[in-house]
């Protein structure tokens, strides 16, 4: 009776130990650093947006920024700080709430890891080693000190893993209260992880695979009737699919309700979406109802996240079709999106445009006509090039377009905002089309516009008239059909995914490669470049990271040896290895720009594996020989000792350093620059 009790007591002690250590370490430096750094410009600003309720666009789902905004709001931050460029001083602004929130979530990681490893390996040593690894890692500390999404993301990932492991342990008591509790908690954490960043998908995959294996073994249990199995299945569907989905949708609902003012993100979304936002020109819009000759209009592509038809003074470069003025699709609102509607013969008597009419679209700023001809389009070679041609109304027959209302008949009027319109090129019979491909540098990375000879009706070839200015016609208040919530949800997701894949590395920007990460090849500069500045450098504690790498290899070797020897695979560690793989390998296939901090979720898993391997190590050796055993204990002990030591050596990286750079022998960090690629 007393034995388990004592054990629990010990457990509690050990849980508190790592937690306290990290909490202290984190909080110490928080208030020292009064200027903000790197991505804080980004996420801090978004927190402010929530407080000011202005609509913005970001490639990540909203939960993380909402929580940051909430933390700021609770602690009295008023959302007025501009967050212009890294390194500015906060001055009188109340920023500690947002940082404290992130830091407190970050300091939950070691205790979570401790509990997870304890559950998986039933060994205190392993759990302690893991907790120590995470607590003394400079990288983890640095990343959880600032207003970033990563500490929040890692919190939810670790939470999901912990509750999943706990749930696995309840296997023999199905449908009991703790069983339900851990199941639901897993689901909640999953939705949280996905709600912060799309990287959360990987942990969902991990939990999904684990659940599938679980269900597979249940299915093979012939004592269980199919009815019972159905119950198991349905409860998991509820806890791990429906509930997270519901929570995730709720997050977005809150996001849309909170952000109801027009802001910098409007142009990414469809006209219908914009009409929701207070302050947008489409909110309770008032304009002439039917498209007329002589009007100034903007034309928006109906593809989700399609841009406005746009042109500018620049020409297509040599070798890309005819060397005429570029016509593109542009996602932001701009005076270059304005077009004039003309008759082919220039007599602009105010009449309405009808389905089947031939028009000429003139770019307001440059007075060039929308033009197409039989040259290849720049990227979509199957289509024709669209250019701006002619000047001040003169042009050629290739400037004529036929207006067609989708589903309309000859003579129908063209409704502003509500009609889907296609523009058919008179001479070649092709249709104005936005392919969604981004033009290279010469096209300012705007979206390609082509003329497609394939006349199938797709959103890419449909456009709507968004702004409509005509002084000769009366303005009528238009109530645009308000979009359904699910439509908004879908639209914002597609916009986010497009945005994410559009984050291509620029030429001058440093792009970190996935193979750099596990070997700790290069860190990330958080703030400060020069000797006089206060510098923070995100870099994992090299001793710990290299230890992680070694134990990963060791684990694979051990599994291979054991499986060949007795045809059994080792339990427990496999889950962690899988987690590491799932959070690391997909980055190799990603085309977007990558940063060092993307590795941190994977690093959590490899740290937990380290704990498990080091603990396994003496046991395995015990079978082989006692002489080795003593030596391995010695190794273990020295490893444990080396962690705090190395942490002490490298702590200025995360808590900030001043003075000369490390290659200078006078620096406090002199001699610690073990790799040339480190830049502190």
């Amino acid at each position: 009776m007393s034995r388990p009790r004592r054990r629990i007591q010990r457990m509690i002690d050990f849980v508190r130990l790592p937690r306290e250590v990290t909490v202290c370490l984190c909080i110490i430096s928080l208030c020292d650093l009064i200027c903000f750094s790197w991505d804080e410009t980004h996420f801090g600003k978004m927190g402010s947006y929530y407080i000011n309720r202005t609509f913005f666009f970001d490639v990540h789902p909203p939960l993380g920024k909402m929580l940051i905004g909430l933390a700021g709001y609770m602690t009295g931050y008023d959302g007025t700080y501009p967050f212009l460029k890294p390194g500015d001083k906060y001055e009188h602004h109340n920023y500690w709430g947002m940082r404290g929130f992130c830091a407190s979530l970050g300091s939950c990681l070691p205790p979570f890891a401790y509990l997870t490893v304890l559950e998986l390996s039933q060994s205190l040593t392993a759990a302690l080693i893991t907790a120590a690894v995470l607590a003394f890692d400079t990288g983890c500390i640095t990343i959880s000190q600032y207003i970033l999404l990563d500490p929040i993301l890692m919190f939810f990932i670790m939470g999901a893993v912990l509750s999943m492991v706990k749930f696995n342990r309840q296997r023999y008591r199905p449908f009991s209260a703790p069983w339900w509790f851990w199941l639901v908690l897993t689901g909640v954490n999953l939705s949280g992880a996905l709600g912060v960043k799309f990287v959360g998908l990987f942990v969902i995959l991990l939990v999904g695979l684990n659940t599938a294996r679980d269900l597979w073994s249940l299915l093979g249990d012939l004592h269980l009737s199919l009815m019972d199995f159905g119950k198991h299945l349905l409860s998991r569907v509820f806890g791990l699919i429906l509930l997270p989905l519901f929570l995730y949708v709720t997050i977005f609902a809150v996001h849309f309700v909170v952000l109801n003012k027009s802001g910098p993100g409007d142009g990414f979304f469809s006209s219908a979406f914009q009409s929701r936002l207070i302050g947008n020109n489409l909110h309770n819009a008032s304009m002439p109802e039917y498209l007329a000759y002589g009007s100034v209009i903007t034309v928006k592509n109906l593809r989700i996240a399609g841009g406005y038809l746009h042109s500018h003074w620049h020409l297509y470069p040599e070798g890309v079709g005819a060397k005429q003025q570029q016509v593109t699709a542009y996602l932001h609102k701009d005076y270059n999106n304005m077009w004039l509607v003309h008759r082919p013969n220039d007599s602009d008597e105010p009449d309405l445009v009808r389905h089947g009419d031939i028009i000429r679209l003139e770019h307001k700023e440059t007075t060039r006509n929308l033009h197409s001809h039989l040259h290849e389009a720049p990227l979509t070679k199957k289509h024709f090039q669209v250019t701006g041609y002619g000047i001040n109304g003169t042009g050629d027959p290739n400037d004529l377009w036929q207006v067609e209302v989708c589903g309309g008949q000859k003579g129908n009027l063209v409704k502003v905002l509500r009609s889907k319109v296609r523009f058919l090129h008179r001479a070649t019979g092709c249709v104005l089309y936005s392919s969604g491909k981004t033009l290279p540098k010469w096209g300012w990375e705007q979206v390609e516009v082509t003329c497609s000879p394939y006349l199938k009706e797709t959103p890419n070839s449909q456009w709507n008239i968004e702004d409509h200015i005509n002084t000769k016609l009366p303005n009528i208040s238009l109530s645009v059909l308000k979009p359904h919530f699910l439509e908004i949800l879908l639209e914002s997701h597609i916009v986010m995914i497009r945005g994410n894949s559009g984050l291509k590395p620029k030429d001058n920007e440093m792009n970190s490669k996935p193979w750099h990460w596990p070997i700790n090849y290069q860190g990330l500069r958080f703030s400060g470049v020069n000797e006089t500045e206060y510098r923070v450098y995100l870099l994992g504690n090299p001793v710990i990271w290299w230890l992680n790498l070694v134990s990963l290899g060791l684990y694979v070797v051990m599994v291979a040896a054991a499986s060949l020897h007795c045809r059994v695979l080792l339990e427990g560690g496999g889950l962690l290895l899988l987690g590491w793989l799932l959070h690391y390998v997909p980055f190799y296939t990603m085309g977007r720009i990558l940063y060092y901090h993307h590795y941190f979720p994977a690093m959590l898993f490899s740290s937990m594996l380290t704990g498990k391997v080091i603990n396994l190590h003496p046991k395995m050796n015990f079978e082989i020989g006692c002489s080795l055993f003593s030596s391995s204990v010695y190794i273990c002990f020295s490893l444990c000792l080396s962690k705090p030591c190395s942490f002490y050596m490298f702590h200025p990286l995360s808590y900030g350093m001043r003075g000369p750079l490390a290659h200078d022998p006078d620096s406090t960090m002199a001699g610690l620059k073990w790799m040339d690629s480190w830049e502190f």
Partner: protein
Amino acid sequence: MLTSIKLPIVIRAEINLVLVVVTALGLLSRLYGINFPKAVVFDEVYYGQFVSLYTKQVFFIDESGPPLGHMILAFGAYLGGFDGNFIWNRIGAEYSSNVPVWSLRLIPALAGSLCVPLCYLLVVELGYSHLTALGAALLFLMENSLIVQSRFMLLESVLIFFLLLAVVSYLRFHNAQSDSPVRLAWLVLTGVTCACAVGVKYMGLFTYFLLLGLAAVHTWQLIGDRALSNVSSLGSFFCLSMNISSVVLMQVVGPHDQMMSSAFQASLEGGLARITQGQPLEVAYGSQVTLRSVSSKPMPCWLHSHKANYPIRYENGRGSSHQQQVTCYPFKDVNNWWIIKDPGRYLVVSSPPRPVRHGDVVQLLHGMTSRLLNTHDVAAPMSPHAQEVSGYIDFNVSMPAQNLWKVDIANREAEQEVWKTILSEVRLIHINTSAVLKLSGSSLPEWGYRQLEVVGDKIYKGYQPSGVWNVEEHRYGTSQEQRERELELHSPTHIDINRNLTFIAKFLELQWKMLTVKHEDSEHKYSSSPLEWITMNTNIAYWLHPASNAQIHLIGNFVTWTLANLALAVYVLLFLSYLLRRRRKIEDIPEATWCQLLQAGVVCAGGWAVNYLPFFMMEKTLFLYHYLPALTFQILLIPVVLEHLHTHMCASLRRALHGVVLAGLSSVYLSFRTFSPLTYGQPELSAEQLASLRWRDSWDILFRRR
């Protein structure tokens, strides 16, 4: 002694007549009228260049992949006695009489037709009946896209042949009685063919991984089977993997090793650092140089001349100067060497060398023939508005030599700038007529060996890449005598630094280069995305008759593609339902059948997946023909699924299934017949008939407006 030999000596031969018939049909369908069209078809323009390079024994870096495939094509060229003299610059260009079209296309067509019996064997080896195997072979036989792809000088059919052979031989190895020597032979054959497949295209690697995985699973089962000694089973597995990788190494290394020393500098792209190594930077009087046109349209080439004169009268009746031809030649050749000569002085570089500067007047002497570069007021052969450029021969017909050229460095930073190797872009302006030496872009007819035309352009304005040249190879000449100079020109320009590299380092560098060379990521008119392939939403126009509506398209047999997709879906459904029911210990089918179904799934569905899914990760330009290896495996799944359904169906449905199979086969045949004019390019169809063949809006079928 002789008693030990039993008499009479008898050879028993069993001939599977079905197999013979199927092979014959395959040969007939792939080889029929293979000479037609006698023009460059689609990617032949691309492979043709490599074939020419191989037949001319010129080393090059092949950016497209491993060399075995090109060597196989070059072997065909060798059989036909092709001399490599054809300029592959335009799809649809007529082949000249020196190109043995038949033998160039023979090997891919043979490989493609041998795939038909291989399909038959594969299905038999999977444990299915001969009737099923016949079905598989027939379906494969009547697949229009595979026929089109194997009738031209393209590599897919060769790849598919090796893939199928690898799978068949692995299955033979697996099914054979243990400890027979034949068994080992099959294993070796698997390794060799896998290596060949990888050698043809890197895609073959994925099928190799699939087989390796299959072998690993089989080995794993053997380890569990304690009756066998672990050592032997493990041995066979390691044997397979080692064998394959070593053969891969041999394959890919071999050809490069023998060619490496000949002329590494002929690399078309990226070899610049190597070329500049050890060359003098400043061009001086007496320098021996090769001049490369800055414009790479229609192709990169070097200023060239040879011992042949312009014909006195062209086909259209215009006359010429009958002086020596000057052309632009897209291959490395000793005839590309020119000597920069100070007018009226010797040909060697003085010491110290006198550099040539912007604005200097020079003469250009052709190294091998000692003719001076000349232009005069005679219309150029192909572009009559421009002047002819020739190597001056004095015929004593009051046509004086006009061979002085002014050096005009286009990208100079200062006046008096020195002409530098590679870096300087130079215009050569004729002193007498102020014409500019320029690549006209058209190619000469037969008498000019189809090389590219070089003209003197009098109305040259602004910066045109076609009128700008740079010095690529360069050395200071030392020999005064013609004979000595010829020897000098034949020797390489610089110390071959590759000699210092070890063999393996060279190999690795080359592999790395091949894998990392950037492909142009722009879109092609007929490129498509992998998603469009499953439903065949796209096609490729391979060839269009220059005058009529006869055309060849890569369009598959629509019925077969649909059936294959259907079969895959049915297979997945069957597999899942059996799997779940077996887990509940409900055994619908006996264990042996289940294993058979599983193995067929791994080979066919797995083969489809490994040859298809990786394309989603690739960022290069993709075409419909990339799907063909995957399609091959998918087609094999149709008869497999059908036989399984047939065996495990109640009797009444069975009869219905017979009907369905018959109907399916006949509709496959009908659709094959319908599209065969687009497959074989003949007979010519009318515009209405072509329009009726456009089953999908997204297919580009070409109409000629009359």
